[in-house]
Structures are given as C-alpha cells and as structure tokens.
C-alpha cells in the first residue's frame, strides 16, 4: 500500500474514531456513567486529524477543554481515555484528570485544558525545548475562536514571533465561544489579519474538508520545521453538540446544526471524495467503521468493569499534603 493510501486509512480511522467516541460519550454521559463537565468535539474531526496527520512522535500539541478529538488524533490510547472519563484507575491519568485535563506526554499530547488559551504559552515552551534541543520537532496549539481574544493567546503570538519558534497556532472557529458567536466577539473580524499584525502568516482552510485542512497544515508545519517561525492556521468548522453536555444551545438558529450535518459533514465529505477518486474502496471504509465501532464498544465495557482509584491516591503525586 502506498504511503498516501496508508495515510488516508489512518485519517479516516482517526476521524471515525473521534466521531464514534464522542457520540458514545454523549450517550454514557446522559446515562449518568460519566461524571463532570464534558465538551464534545463531534463535527470538527477534519481539523484535528487534518493537522495531526502532519505530525510525528517528536511533535507536541496542546488542546482545549474540548480535547478528546485532539487526544485521539495525536495517538492517545482510546481505551485509557474512556476509562479516564469513567473515573476509573485505568484512566489515561489514573482518574485524576477527567475530560478537561486528559494528557499523555509520551505521545506528545500536553493536555486538554480547562483554561481558555492556556495551551498557547505551553506550546511556546514545547517549541522552545525543540529549538533548544534541536529535535526538529514542532508544537501545535489547538484553540477555539474564544481563545483568540485571550491575553495568553495574544502574548504567545508575539513571543513565538520574537523568538522565532516552530509553532503552529490552530484556531478552530466553530462559530461560538460558549454561547457567544465569533462573528461578534472577534474585533476586526479577521484572524488572518490579526496574525499578520503580529508578524506571522496565516493560512485559512475549510475545516469541514480534511484535504484542505491537511494541505494548509502541511504548509504551516513545513514553515516551522524549516526554522522560519510560527504561523496561524484558521479553520472554519462546526460543533454538533452544545458547548458542554447539558447545553441546549438555544443561541443557535433552529435547524442550523441539522443542516450542517446533512450538507457539510466532514466524514461524509471524506468518504465521497475518496470513493469518487478511487483512493479507497467502500469495503475498506466499512471495514474501518466496523473496527472502530468494536473498539469503542470494548472500551466502554472495559471502563465500566474497571475499579475506581483507591482513596489513598488522593494524596499521591504531590510532594506534601499537610
């Protein structure tokens, strides 16, 4: 199989995995088996996967509160993630993180983050490490439209430019920062211009289109790896669920989500394109879908069967407890 074909298989696998994972988490959360705050990524898969397919082991990403998609795209263990959400000891962070803080630095995932914009400075740090240690790695910060107005983000844009860091700032504009539309909250309305104002180029892409995202990401990553400094990747997309699980999302127009699901769904778009172009067969696609469905099922069963962390773990992983 060609490298390109393998990449397409991987990309479809990851996007399908994210979609099915999020849908299942939505169900389990409704049932009450998953505690806490959940922010689902379904709908934005092409963004996470389009970018992460350009990254390797030595590259880092930081994510947002809506982090499951980025985690899966970067290679975090899906079963461990499901355990984590179920607050079990076999979780990817031993049950101490939950949805909003899931991380695995061994695969370069610096964590989902409960603080909007906070990943941006961290990613500058990871890029600094790569530059200082000459690893050839790059660091990617995923953020939403809301984060684009945070001080942490703007300072990081500037610092990355001044230090010429190998960073890619990825803004996934899904139209809403919590309940407030991006069209209202982004002063000047144009994040590419904002990036250019800071001294770095911006690349736009249709976030519903895996191939467009991947191409734009390729440019930004190549620029960073080449030592030419940071860039902004601006992706328009949509989220299918509310800001958080429990959000009725009445700030969205009636039928808005349904129309996007029908007309712009990134998975459907991917399938149509690869089939039309003869790049993958219907059987291959179905095979992947079945494999993923199986994995998600298994991960839930495994999570449910696992035990909660022992209470003694309350005071571990910290130097002093008084």
């Amino acid at each position, binding site marked *: 199989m060609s490298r390109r074909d393998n990449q397409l298989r991987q990309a479809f696998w990851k996007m399908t995995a994210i979609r099915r994972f999020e849908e299942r988490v939505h169900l389990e959360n409704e049932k009450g088996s998953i505690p806490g705050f959940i922010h689902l990524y379904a709908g934005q898969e092409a963004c996470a996967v389009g970018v992460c397919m350009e990254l390797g082991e030595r590259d880092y990403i930081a994510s947002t509160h809506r982090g499951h998609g980025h985690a899966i795209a970067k290679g975090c263990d899906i079963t461990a993630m499901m355990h984590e959400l179920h607050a079990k000891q076999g979780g990817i962070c031993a049950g101490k993180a939950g949805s909003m803080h899931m991380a695995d630095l061994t695969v370069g995932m610096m964590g989902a983050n409960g603080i909007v914009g906070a990943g941006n400075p961290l*990613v500058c740090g990871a890029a*600094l490490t790569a530059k200082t240690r000459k690893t050839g790695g790059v660091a990617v910060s995923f953020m939403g439209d809301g984060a684009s107005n945070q001080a942490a983000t703007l300072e990081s844009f500037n610092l990355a430019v001044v230090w010429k860091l190998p960073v890619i700032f990825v803004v996934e504009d899904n139209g809403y920062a919590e309940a407030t539309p991006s069209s209202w909250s982004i002063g000047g309305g144009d994040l590419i211009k904002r990036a250019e104002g800071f001294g770095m180029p911006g690349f736009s892409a249709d976030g519903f289109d895996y191939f467009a995202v991947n191409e734009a990401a390729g440019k930004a990553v190549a620029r960073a790896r080449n030592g030419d400094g940071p860039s902004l990747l601006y992706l328009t997309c949509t989220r299918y669920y509310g800001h958080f699980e429990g959000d009725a999302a009445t700030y969205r127009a009636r039928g808005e989500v349904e129309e996007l699901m029908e007309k712009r769904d990134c998975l459907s778009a991917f399938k149509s394109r690869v089939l039309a172009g003869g790049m993958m067969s219907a059987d291959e696609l179905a095979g992947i879908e079945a494999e993923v469905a199986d994995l998600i099922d298994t991960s839930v069963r495994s999570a449910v069967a696992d035990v909660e962390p022992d209470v003694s773990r309350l005071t571990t992983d910290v130097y002093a407890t008084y």
Partner: protein
Amino acid sequence: MARKTYREAINQALDQEMARDDRVILIGEDIAGGTGASGAQDAWGGVMGVTKGLIGKYGPERVLDTPISELALVGAGAGAAATGLRPVVELMFNDFLGVCLDQLMNQAAKFRYMFGGRVRAPLVVRTQYGAGLRAAAQHSQTLYSIFAHIPGLKVAVPSNPYDAKGLLMSAIRDDDPVIFMEHKAMYDDIGEVPDEAYTVPFGEGRVLQEGKDVTVIAIGRMLQTAEKAIQAARADGIRCSLVDPRTISPLDEGLILEMAAETGRVVIVDEANPRCGVAADIASLICEQAFGDLQAPVVKVTAPHTPVPFAPVLEDAYLPSAERIAAAIKQVRAY
C-alpha cells in the same frame, strides 16, 4: 571562605547549574537586556544585575530575554519544563503575579497530580519581593502566602547569601515547580558562601540562636530585624531562640513545633499582610499541635492590612520594626 553578596550567590548558583546541566535555561525580561538593541548586550543582566555575565558565558540560546509578556513567558517556562528543559524563569517582581498566575496555579503546579503522576514540571520561578526601597504599592508586596496556598508549588525564602545559593541549586535540581523569593533589599547583603556547589534541602529550617524564654520565628529579611529585637530583649533579661524556616512550602513543621514547645512562648514575624498569611498558618499549626506546651498565646508581628505606602515615614511604619518585635517578645514573656 569566600564572602559574597546575596546577588553574587544567586548568580553563582545559576552559573554552576547551567554549567552542570545543559537543560537549564534562563527566561525573563531584561535578564540580559539589550537584545536586538544597537548598544551593549547584557546591558542590565537583570533589573537588579543578578543574571549579569551569564549570556556572555552561555549564549542567547540559553539566556533568553523576552517581551513584557509574563503570561506567555511563565507559560513557556511551564511548557518547556514539561517537555524536557529545566527553565529558570524570572518574574521581575512578585507583584506581577496577577498577570501570569494561571500558568503557575492551574498549569505548572497541577501537571504532576492531574496527569496521574506521569509528568513532572521542573520549573523555577525567581521573583523579587518585599518593602523597604520606597518602591510603593505595586512593587513592594510579599506574596509568598499565595504561592504556598497552591498545592504542587514549592516556595523558598532564603534569608542570607549562603541559603540563597544552596536553596537555588536545590530548586533547579528539584523536579517540582519552585517559587524562589528574593528580597529586593538584600541583594547587597554579604555572607560566607562556599565557592563549591552545594545544596540546602527544602523542608529544613535553621535555628540561628537558642534561648530558653521565647521562640521567635521570622521569615526572610525579617530575621535581621528580629535579631535586633532579640538583642534588645536581652537587656531585659529575656533570652530568645530564633528560627528561620528557609522554605515556606514544604515547611519544617517538626522544627517549628520542637522550638515552640521548648519555650511555650512564640512570636512570629512576617512582613506580609496579616490576613490568610504564613504567620497565621504557622500560628495555627502550633496551636493545633503544641497546645499543651504553650504558656502564652502565639503572637504575630506583621505589616498592617494595607497596601505598601510610598512616603518613607509611612513605609518605615509599615514594616515590622525591632521595637514592635521586642514589645511582642516582652508581651508573651510576661503572660
């Protein structure tokens, strides 16, 4: 033995650790100064000259000036620490904590715990604190209580050049994030400091003198004022012990309780504001765990609960004085 200033001791600690471990880098505003300018490089070497000479020795890849962006630079330190470097970040004045607290409080402090023990953040944040230089309200605060309140952060407050070098070397070698508090009025203080590399462990306080009547616990620069007060109290026949915790977190509770029990009379001196501070924390510890040995209420001598005033006459009244401390010593002795 070599005599060095507090400033030189800190510089030497940074120098020796950077020589020993090439993962140690320095990040901060004007820690060299002159980067990108047409005049001299290393123009400042830090606002108080603490980092002077290091860019010349280690180069701009390991001594990084920054724009005025505490949130980004402290966060970059946290991110670099989580991914393989051992950064020493300078927060120019602890009063600027407000603009970067998230990266310390919610990020660096919590990585180890939140990520199930699988990630360490060996970050050091050096920062200036304290009143006495007429720097006024926004450049004179003592905020170590805020840091100590956050689980996951370690906090060191060296009171002399020897401890400054040893604690900083320990801080850099520590895999947890450490806030290293330097009193801005102490940089020219002189003390005996070995030229060799050495460490002072965290969680170990020190007894400077012993006396059977009253135990005085003081933090940072307040040890010098406490010493004067203790000398004055000697004239009244009162003999005092003097304890320096050296690190606020972890705190040498054992030593504090032992020394409190020896006399049963305790005075705690802290130049921070009184509410929710380290002095109150230590007083609570003693009351809870050494109650039976107490002969008098535990008395705190702190600044008033006000911002730091500018006028010298007011700032001098703000800081705990030897007279106020001596009065507190007499008060607990007479109880």
